[in-house]
Every structure is written in C-alpha cells, then in structure tokens.
C-alpha cells in the first residue's frame, strides 16, 4: 500500500469528501491560493474552485460564526483555525453557539461542521503557536474533540468528522505532520469518533495518551518491554466524548494508570480520565495515578519547551514512579 504523511492523509480526506458531497466547503485564513500554512489544503482551491475553498479575512470569530450559519443552512463547512492558540477568539462561537444550536433550537437546526487546527509543541514556533487547549472544549457539551496521532487514523477520523451531524473539533499535532509515512488506504474509510485504540497491549500498567505524545509513549513502552515490563498504551483519539470503557477495561486489568499529555496539568484531560477511574475502578488501583503533562505555566519559549513538555525521560520516570508502589 502507498504510504502517506499525516498531512497528506488529512488533505486526502478532505479531497475525497469534497468529491463525494458538494456541500462540503473549506474556509480559513490562507487555505486557498497558499494551500494553508502547512499545505493541508494544497491544491484544493485549484481543484474545486473559489466557490468551495475560501480564503477568509483575518477574523477567527467571523470564520467560525459564518461557518455556523453556513452549516445551519445546509452546507458542511470545514473551518481552519491557523494555530490552536488563536481559538480563544472563537470560544463564544464554538462553545455558546455551534455547540448549543441543536439544543437551543430543540433539534430544528444542526451544525455539521469541522474545525481543524494545528497544535502542540516541539516545533520551535513563536508564542501561542504551540499551546494545547483541547481541555477547554471537553467541558462544552455539544462538541466532539478528535486528535489523531498517525496518518491512518487522521484520514479515517477526519472523514468521520466531516460526516458527523454535530460540530467536531479536529486538532492536528504539527510535529507529526511529516514525521513519518505510513500505509493509508486509497479509498475513503471511517474510524468511529469516541473510540480509543489500544496501540500496545500489556498487563503491568496503562498509559493513556493522545496526539503528539503518542509516539514517545510508545517508544518508552517499547524500551520497558525490553526490560520485561509490559505497558499497555491507549491512544484516546477522541477526547470528547472520552472512551471511558476502554480506559476502565485496561485499568481493571493493569491496576495502574498514567496519563500523558502536553497541555498544562491542572484542569487538563488527564484530570477527567483520572477521575473517571477513581470513581469507577478505584478498587482496581494498585498505585496512585500519575500524570506527566505540561507544567502549570504558560507554554514556554523555544529554548525551554523540550524540557517542559513530556519527553522520554519524564515518561520513563513517571512509569518508574507508577511501578514503584507494590
């Protein structure tokens, strides 16, 4: 099978859905002629025309707000927010508008819209270009939040997202855009939203993670494997709604849980996962839950980010910590 990078898989998902359904359109800053600052939409305006792919004025709330109206009147917009750090500008339109339109209108209107945005760190970008803000949206009912960690998932999840009848936020770890090529089927396929994927089985402890930290968690788990320690690694893929069953099943088996994410610790996705477990699998727990996350500071400057983010050293230490309780 041919191999694609994640960014190619993302572009292909959009291209195929646009071919299939002419109500699918793309809007965002620099997504047209320029093909997006990461080239996610490269060639799509050329192929589908200026009536399907729109370069917008520089106004994020306007992008999401008009996309809500487009969706309410029959279109299926894919809106790009150039970097996730700019999504603060759109919180009303996402959390108070898109998320609630079905509810507000008692089901008369729906907002089938996808919001794509690159995020996460280790790429030496300027301030507010690397922040992981996904947890903000987990707390807003009506939204779904999807975060792929590899080309195959990216394509399948994005196709599912575009076909959803509710707004889906689709956050793409920049550092994985071109970090590897993997086999991706040519034909369109769906990966269900809301389902985690156990990417490595193990009995000694569970590590739940998603997005940019997935490869390093897997790498760490493999290193432990060589030392005879079998870690189970769960790639959440969707953080809203969280696949609680998959997590509980794993923790019931391993008795230990570590959560890894780039976002700051307090109030992050890790807190919700840990809480679900402490509500529902408390008696399975053989050790305190461990979080390896960004620290509770603003996302730091480039020269500090690699130490601040979860990295193999910190994850390894976390696992040792988790296993130290007998």
């Amino acid at each position: 099978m041919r191999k694609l990078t994640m960014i190619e898989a993302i572009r292909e998902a959009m291209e195929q859905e646009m071919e299939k359904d002419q109500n699918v359109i793309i809007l965002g800053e620099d997504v047209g002629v320029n093909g997006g600052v990461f080239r996610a939409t490269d060639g799509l305006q050329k192929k589908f025309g200026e009536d399907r792919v729109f370069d917008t004025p520089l106004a994020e709330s306007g992008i999401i707000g008009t996309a809500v109206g487009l969706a309410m009147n029959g279109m299926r917009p894919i809106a790009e927010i150039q970097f996730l750090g700019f999504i603060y500008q759109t919180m009303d339109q996402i959390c108070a508008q898109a998320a609630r339109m079905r509810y507000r209108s008692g089901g008369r209107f729906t907002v089938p819209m996808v919001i794509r945005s690159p995020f996460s760190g280790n790429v030496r970008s300027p301030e507010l270009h690397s922040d992981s803000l996904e947890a903000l949206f987990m707390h807003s009912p009506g939204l779904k939040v999807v975060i792929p960690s590899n080309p195959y998932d990216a394509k399948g999840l994005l196709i599912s997202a575009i076909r959803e009848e509710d707004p889906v936020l689709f956050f793409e770890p920049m550092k994985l855009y071109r970090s590897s090529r993997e086999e991706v089927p040519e034909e369109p396929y769906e990966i269900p939203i809301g389902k985690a994927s156990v990417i490595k089985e193990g009995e000694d402890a569970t590590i739940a993670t998603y997005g940019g930290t997935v490869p390093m968690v897997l790498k760490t788990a493999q290193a432990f494997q060589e030392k005879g320690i079998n870690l189970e690694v769960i790639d959440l893929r969707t953080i809203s709604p969280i696949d609680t069953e998959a997590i509980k099943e794993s923790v019931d088996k391993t008795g230990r849980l570590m959560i890894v994410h780039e976002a700051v610790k307090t109030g992050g996705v890790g807190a919700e996962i840990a809480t679900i477990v402490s509500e529902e699998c408390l008696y399975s727990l053989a050790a305190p839950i461990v979080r390896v996350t960004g620290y509770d500071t603003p996302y730091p400057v480039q020269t500090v980010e690699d130490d601040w983010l979860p990295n193999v050293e910190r994850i390894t230490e976390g696992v040792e910590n988790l296993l130290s309780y007998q």
Partner: protein
Amino acid sequence: MINIFEKHQPTEMYQIVNERGEYNEAALNDLNLNNELLQNMHYWMLKGRIMDQRFLKLHRQGRIGTYGPFSGQEAAQVGSALALSKTDWVVPSYRESLVSMIHGTSLKQFLSYLKGYFGGNRPPEDAKLFPIQVIIAGQVPHAVGCAWASKLKKEDSVTTVYFGDGATSQGDFHEGLNFAAVYNVPIVFFCQNNQWAISTPFEKQTTSETIAQKAIAYGMKGVRVDGNDVLACYQVAKEAIEKARKGEGPTLIEAVTYRRESHTTADDWTKYRSQEDVDAWVKKDPIVRFERFLMNKGLLTTERKEEMVKQFEEEIEKAVKDFEGTPLPPAHETFDYVYEKPHPQLLKQREEFKNRLER
C-alpha cells in the same frame, strides 16, 4: 421604485410619514402600495403593541419569565418583516418577537419560550427562521453564513438579521459585516437603533453620529431611516432586499426608533432616563402616526380599530389560557438534543436523571 440608496447619504434620515401623519406624496406614489398591504401593516403593529403590553402584564403576574418588550419599535419590525418573502431567512435577537411571528412563529410557541419550556426556542419546521439569540451580535455572523449558503446553493433567498444599537460595538458585528461585503452575500443588516442598550444611551455607545455610516468601513451601502415610519421602513428594507437578491450586495439599515419600556422585565428605566426623554419619543409613536395616515386615507375608522383591539385581546387571552394547560415536555428531553445520538456517558446520565424524576 425610487432608488433611495443613490440619492441618500447615510447620515440623513429617510422618512415618508412624519409624526403628524403627513406624508411625502411623491415617495408614497412611487411606493405604490395596495390597501391590503397598508392594512396588514396596521394589523401587525397594533397586534404587536397589544401582545407586548399583555406580556408585560403576564410577567407582573408571575405567569412568564423575563421578557424583552418592543413597544415603540413596531414600525421598524413590521415594515422590515413585511418586505420579506417566506423563502427569505430571518435571524433575530431577543427583541424581534413581532418579526418572528410575522415570519411564522405561533403565539403558542413563543409562550412556551417565555415559560421556559424545553423546545420553546424551536422555530417551526416551515419557517425560515433562526432561534432567538441571547448573545449580543452573536447572530450576525450566523446570518452572514446563512446568506452565503443561499448564494452557494444558488437559492433565491435573502437573509435579514436584526440587532440593536448596542450590538454594533461588538467584534462579531464588525467581522460579520466585513465577511458579508467580501463575499457579497445576499443579506440585509437591520439595526433597530432604539437609543438604549439597557442603561447605556447611544451617545455613550459610539462617537459615530449614525450607525448607517458604519457601513462605509466595509465599502457597503448604509441607510438611515425613520424607524417609527412603517412605510419608510418597508421601502428601505424592500429596496435592500431586492438589491441583495440581484446580487448587488449587502446593506446596513439603521432604523431610528425608541425603546419605550424597560430593557426587560428585570430592568427599571427610571434609574437612568427621564420621563421627558420618554415622552419626547412617545410623541413620535409609530402606531398613532400610521393610524392618522390611514384615517386620512379612509382606510381605518375608530370603530374598526376598537374592534381590532378587542379581537386581539381575546385572541391573546385564549392563546395564553390554552397554553397554560400545556404539560411540560419530559425533563429528560434535555439529554436528547445535545448530539444526534447521545454518547454512552450521556445516556447513563440520562437514565439516572430520568429514574430520579420518575421515582
């Protein structure tokens, strides 16, 4: 039809019928309205006023929740709403109950909104109407998107979005108008400048002399119209709608009017404005003025009016009584409209909730 957009500067106020009921003959002839339409305008304005006052009373009696009255703004709402076709979209804020009714919402539906029933903000299936928006200016970009979709689908539909003078200070107003102009979508921005945003007078809202001139920032047409003159409102809205329909771009209309009552039933205007301020505007009342005009024209008599008032009062009374017998929708419906299909945790929560209430 005269093209007022060509002749008219955004800082001048367009008027056909003045406070004394005197009218601009040429403009009126140009409009060439049939009597049925004139009577329809009166019908809705009068019905609106009676309904509005009735709702205020219902609130005082504790029979409905917070209500935002529109008395004094009937001409702006009726004039613009009657200029629309049924295939045109309406995107309202919380103060356009009258527009929503003209465009298809029933009294019953609206009561269920005011009583806080789940589904109360569900526009009827066959009405091209958005739900009531509470976030100031939040609906402006939605409307632009809606109009944009009509354009992309090559539908012959124009969107009219309503908002107040206060809303023009919001970023979403600015971003929305800019998008509309850039994509040249078929939309009319209808601002009811009722001089107040709760306790904030227009002069503190902006240093701009008018709202209409804000259109210049987007290379858009802006028109200022007497919002208490139903004919002028109709004419200006009609022209803007047809312009939009022809693909000639969006228009910002400023209808200059006045909020006679408090902001909502939770507000008390005596805290921040004087009786004289209110009285000065009561003199410009849109209904009194239009009734003088109609009576002059022989299209209305005092007896006919009294009959209408009585009939409206009965109609509303009946609707309220009928509604008050309506059972609440089951509370657990609250879980059924979050997503197309509730996810497993939500289903679990729904069960717990339902079981508890049914115990």
